[in-house]
């Protein structure tokens, strides 16, 4: 087995690896994949191919549009009945499988522990499923008395011509509660990403702005693209509360539809997962004048940076002082633990292929521990998540993207916040950055290998080449990678651990890295007799 590279002198140029990967593919596929595998050079503007179809037959990490819409964006909202119109599987697989924690008050609605489906049968496919859908909505209303029902289309729905939007309108009129549909059939896009966009549109159109709740705090913010996996949002909520920042609504971890209805009363939108939620941030700015900033609470340093950025936005002396007080106190705790753990994990090698922002965010935690990230990529991101938002005007709109509705948003004269527009302009003059995300690639080292939509074959080759100490991906990759003797940390479900956001979350992650990287168990894979010569002893029992 060849020895591992010396990563302390910079990363090796992976050009041979890239060639070896591509060699295996049929010519057309090789040409396509070549554009999605980029040897990074942060000093040069490089283009990566992203958000394009996965070649049929490839063992991909990606899921479908429905998963992005129902599973990711609407799934974590507790006071809505998410009714899946389709055969049973789609509802079954999105039933409690994403670890979105939620904390309903006593007596408050929480439907997240339930799976609702029209369980379409063949006669519904042949004769249409609208009547059954209507009846299911009625039954759901009568039994559960929800305040809102969302209807999610699965693959066959669009094909047989069921109109979920007209059913939603009819039932809304009949039952008098908010009911809306999503055309999020699995095939709509090239990945979950299309579903995020569809969900953003639906929530913006049907929920945001329904309730002009009076102000409750001095600093009102929304947190967008934080889904409270393993309690991540709870950590952020706690910090905000201490700092005196009023969190109006989160899209959508630990959230309610009710809170989204008055999301337009916020002064600032903070975008965590740029990929899944930037649409709604953009639309809220156009309609209400609420500016948005990119934040990250993954990593202690990022948390400090994000907190300061919020404080700077409001420019309030008291808030700034409070934020600094929290940072000093928390960083003292974090540093003490980091200093203890870092020597045990420093210099280790990691790679991560996951999601649409996590593969970037988690690099901060690794760098805090001195772990090298040699290769990374997203599962369903777009070019702007790699190269930064500056490339958006240059992204070619292909047929798959054109399928997804682009809402025409106009200014809401009554609610538009001219004060925020003025504030934004003033801050921009001082160099404050709004609506910007620089993407993953500028933050990665020279010669790191950036791969979009990594697949099984590439995963095996990557491990062979880099011999990483830890690999981050999802459940489908977990045991493949571990069979190769490399521990895998799931960054979708956190292996049922977490939270990993903010200061306590960073500490959790450091401890988890210590557990995974400092264990001896991987060295015990080979049996002690593996290299002993074979004996045929005279005590062997003959009939066996």
């Amino acid at each position, binding site marked *: 087995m060849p020895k591992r590279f010396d990563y302390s002198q910079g990363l090796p140029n992976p050009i041979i690896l890239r060639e070896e990967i591509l060699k*295996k593919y*049929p010519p057309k596929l090789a040409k396509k994949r070549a554009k999605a595998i980029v040897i990074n050079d942060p000093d040069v503007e490089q283009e990566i191919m992203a958000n394009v*179809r*996965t*070649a*049929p*037959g*490839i063992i991909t990490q*990606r*899921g*479908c549009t*429905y*998963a992005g819409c129902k599973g990711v964006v609407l799934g974590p909202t507790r006071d809505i009945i998410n*009714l899946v119109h*389709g*055969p*049973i*599987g*789609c509802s*079954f*697989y999105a*039933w409690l*499988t994403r670890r979105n924690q939620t904390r309903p008050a006593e007596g408050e609605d*929480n*439907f997240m*522990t*339930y*799976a609702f*489906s*029209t*369980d*379409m*049968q063949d006669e519904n*496919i042949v004769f249409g499923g609208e009547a*059954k*859908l209507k*009846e299911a909505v009625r*039954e*759901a209303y*009568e*039994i559960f008395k929800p305040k809102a029902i969302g209807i999610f289309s699965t*693959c*066959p729905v*669009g*094909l*047989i011509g069921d109109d979920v939007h007209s059913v939603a309108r009819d039932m809304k009129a009949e039952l008098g509660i908010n009911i809306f549909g999503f055309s999020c*059939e*699995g*095939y709509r896009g090239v*990945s979950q990403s299309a579903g995020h966009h569809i969900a953003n549109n639906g929530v913006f159109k049907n929920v945001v702005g329904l309730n002009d709740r009076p102000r409750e705090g001095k600093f009102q913010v929304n947190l967008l693209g934080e889904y409270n996996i393993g309690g991540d949002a709870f950590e952020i909520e706690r910090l905000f509360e201490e700092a005196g920042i009023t969190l109006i609504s989160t899209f959508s971890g630990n959230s309610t539809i009710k809170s989204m209805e008055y999301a337009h009363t916020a002064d600032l939108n903070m975008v965590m997962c740029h990929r899944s939620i930037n649409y709604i941030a953009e639309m809220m700015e156009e309609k209400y004048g609420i500016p948005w900033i990119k934040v990250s609470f993954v990593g202690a340093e990022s948390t400090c940076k994000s907190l300061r950025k919020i404080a700077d936005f409001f420019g309030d002396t008291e808030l700034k002082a409070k934020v600094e007080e929290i940072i000093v106190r928390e960083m003292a705790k974090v540093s003490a633990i980091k200093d203890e753990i870092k020597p045990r994990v420093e210099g280790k090698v990691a790679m991560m292929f996951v999601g649409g922002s996590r593969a970037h965010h988690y690099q901060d935690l690794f760098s805090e521990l001195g772990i090298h990230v040699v290769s990374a990529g997203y599962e369903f991101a777009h070019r702007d998540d790699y190269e930064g938002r500056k490339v958006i005007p240059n992204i070619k709109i292909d*047929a*798959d993207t054109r399928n997804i509705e682009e809402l025409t948003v106009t200014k809401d004269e009554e609610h538009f916040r001219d004060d925020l527009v003025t504030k934004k302009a003033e801050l921009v003059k001082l160099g404050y950055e709004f609506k910007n995300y620089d993407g993953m690639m500028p933050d990665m080292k020279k010669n790191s290998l950036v791969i979009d939509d990594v697949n099984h*074959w590439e995963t095996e080759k990557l491990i062979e080449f880099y011999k990483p100490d830890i690999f981050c991906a999802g*459940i*489908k990759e977990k*045991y*493949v990678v*571990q*069979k190769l*003797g490399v521990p895998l940390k799931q960054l979708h479900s956190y292996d049922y651990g977490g939270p990993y956001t903010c200061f306590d979350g960073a500490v959790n992650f450091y401890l988890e890295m210590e557990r995974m990287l400092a264990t001896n168990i991987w060295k015990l894979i080979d049996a002690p007799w593996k290299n002993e010569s074979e004996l045929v002893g005279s005590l062997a029992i003959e009939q066996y």
Partner: protein
Amino acid sequence: MLLRHTTNEVRERNALTVNPAKTCQPVGAMYCALGVHGCLPHSHGSQGCCSYHRSALTKHYKEPVMAATSSFTEGSSVFGGQANLLQAVETIFSVYDPEIIAVHSTCLSETIGDDLGQILAKARDEGKVPFGKHVLAASTPSYVGSHVTGYANMLESFVKYFAEKTNEKIRQVNLLSGWVEPSDMRELKRIMKMMKVRSVLLPDTSDVLDTPMTGKFEMYPKGGTTIAEIVSMGDSMETLGLGEWATQKAAIALDNQCKVPFDIIDIPVGLRATDRFIQALAKAGRVSVPESITEERGRLLDMITDMHQYVYGKRVAVYGDPDNIIPLIEFLVDIDMKPVYVVSGTPGKRFEKRMEEILKDRVPEAKYKNGPQADMFLMHQWIKKEPVDLIIGNTYGKYIARDENIPFVRMGFPILDRVGHSYFTTLGYVGGLRILEKILSVLMDKQDAIAPEEKFELTM
């Protein structure tokens, strides 16, 4: 409360399923195909189907689950999935090099009317299937039946594609397995070895979904029924199908195609289903039952009689797949428990009949239902009305168990939160011991937890 909206008022539902006791066909087809050596399952539909099914199986087994997808987009949904499948076949053989690709359809490809047979014929004509390699297909529309139906359809496709009748009968028995765990398949093989019956087990997920940690990843692990073995099934003396939902179709196909007579019996769960299995095996293999099997049976009977007082009269709620829960319910009745509530999302008229036979005299108060709307929500409502002492089913039951403070034994698919099912069988007499041990443990744990201090028992 985790399920805070569930009340004891049962309202008749005709359209809404809540907390299903089933999932859809393709995952069954995928699981079945993994039990054939060198086979890569392929999902002809949107990426999400493949992703969800792989995730569910991976979480249940904590093992690699490899499968490919046709990655449908809007275009393929409008113009048909032929181009996608042709490209997939080419890509799979060049990149992943399996012996067999086992394609299953999805609700999407079924709805648009893709003809898998025709597309695969075209793939062969165009030379996309290398010499000596195989591509076969099963139609598994998600809007018909359940995951068990998908398993049955893929099993049928395997025997139809491979089984061949020559002029030479082979003195072996075909064993078509219902949806059971790798540990159970290992147990079936052990029993057949003890019985000295030569046999072919199809599918066989042992050594596929319970592989050792070696530092190497084998895309096609050493387990799985081999092509040669499936081919030889056409010359076997007899077929035993374990579980009519999962195996009857394949058994009939084998009979039609190769004139191998068949017998459909229950999966050997518990005492009497195992008795019938052993007798059927003895008859099919023309062997007598060895003493060692009788001794295993005796050990199970011994534990039942030793511990009878703890299970007697206890009310049980059970949900799961017909093939698995029918013999389980029979076992519970045999040990004098009362399975009062039974639901299965899997449709099929025979379910009601079997339940009636088993429960009519011994547990006349029992409620049972299968098909759409026979879901865990209904079962929970029944429990709210009149509680039970024990719940048996897949992981989703933990929400009810916690809300209602009811002991809970995990059996079925999926089990997402405990280990053991891959390694410790629940089939045969040995498996009966395991089921009984699990039931006793949770019942006794509760007794230990709630007994007043003066009534706390050392010996039980």
